[in-house]
C-alpha cells in the first residue's frame, strides 16, 4: 500500500469538493472576464495533454510497446471511440508487443 495514503485521500476529496462547492454556495454573480472564462475552459485540455505526454511512453515495460500502444490509442481516439475501447485497445497492443519482444528477444 502506498505511503501517506490517508493524507492523499483527504487532500483529493477536500480540494475537489471545495472547487465545486464554493461558487454554488457563496457566489451569486457571473464571471464576465472573457480571458478568465476562456482560460478556465482550456485548462482541462492543457492539463490532460501535459499529464499524458511524455509520461505515456514510460508507462509500460518497454518504450517500444508504449509507443505502439500510444499509436493505437491516438488512432482510435481520433475516430472518437469510447474511453474504455481506446484504453483497452492500447493495453492489448502493449500486451501483444511485449509478448513478441519476449519471443524474439528483442532488446
Amino acid at each position, binding site marked *: *500500500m*502506498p505511503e501517506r495514503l490517508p*493524507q*492523499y*485521500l483527504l*487532500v*483529493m476529496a477536500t*480540494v*475537489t*469538493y471545495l*472547487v*465545486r*462547492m*464554493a*461558487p*454554488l*454556495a457563496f*457566489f451569486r454573480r457571473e*464571471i464576465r472576464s*472573457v*480571458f*478568465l*472564462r*476562456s*482560460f*478556465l*475552459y*482550456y*485548462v*482541462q*485540455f*492543457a*492539463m*490532460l*495533454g*501535459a*499529464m*499524458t*505526454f*511524455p*509520461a505515456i511512453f514510460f*508507462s*509500460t515495460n518497454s518504450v517500444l510497446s508504449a509507443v505502439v*500502444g*500510444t499509436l493505437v*490509442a491516438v488512432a482510435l*481516439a481520433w475516430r*472518437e*471511440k*469510447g*474511453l*474504455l*475501447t481506446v*484504453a483497452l*485497445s*492500447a*493495453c492489448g497492443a*502493449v*500486451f501483444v508487443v*511485449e509478448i513478441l519482444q519476449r519471443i524474439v528477444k528483442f532488446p
Partner: protein
Amino acid sequence: MQAPGVNSAKKGIHDGLPIALGYLSVSFTFGMMAVAAGLPVWVAVLISMTNLTSAGQFAGLSLITAGASMVEMALTQLTINIRYSLMSLSLSQKLDRAVSLPHRLALSFGITDEIFAVAMGQTGTVGKRYFYGLMLMPYLGWSLGTLAGALAGSVLPQWVVGALGIAIYGMFVAIILPPARHSPAIRVVLLTAVALSCLLHFAPVLNQISSGFAIILCTLAAAALGALLFPLREEKPPAGTDAGQDGPRDETEN
C-alpha cells in the same frame, strides 16, 4: 424573475439513469487501475465515493503512485477540477433561489460534466429534489462500477495487470482528441501543453522540476496562451433556445 422550473425527484432519477450507465465503464476502468497501482479495493471505492470525478481521480492515482507531495496533489486537483467552479457558478444562476445554504453545500458535491449538462438543459429553474434525484443514479453507478473494476483487477493475473499501465493515458487520449479534432483552438492549446511538457521532461536543468509542478506550469502556460489567442466568444443564445449552451460547455463527456 425566475420562471417556474423542474423539481421532481422521480424525473431527476429518470434523467440520471443514462449518465449512470455511461459512468459504469469509466469507473470500472478506474477500479482496475487503482488495484493495478497497488491500492486495496476499499480504497479505490472510497476515492470514487468521495471524489466523483474521472480525470481528477486518474490524475490523483498517478500522483499517489509517483509519491508526489501533498502540495502537488492539491494543486493538481485544483487545476484539473477548476472547470467545476465554472459549472458551479452557472448552476448558482440556474438553481431555485429558495434552495438554502445547507442544501447548496450538499448538492454541489454532485456537479459533474454530465449532471451539469442535464441540469442546465432543463427549462426554467432547477429545484433541490430534482437535483438530488439526478445525482443519485450516477453516484451509485460510479461507486459500484469502481467496486466491480477493483474486484476484477484483483483476480486478474499479474502479467495482465502489467499491461494496464498505459490504460490511464489511453483514456486521457480518448478524452482530449475528439474535442481537439473539432476545434483548432483546442488543438493549439493541447500541442503547446504537450510540447512544453516534453521540454520540461527532457531538457537539461529544466528536468529538475518535479513532474507534478511541471504539469501545472505547462497547463497554466498553454491555457493562458489559448485564452489570449482564442478568447471564447460571448454566446448570447436567442430567447427560447437551450440554456445549456450558454457559456463554455465541457466537451469531455462521452
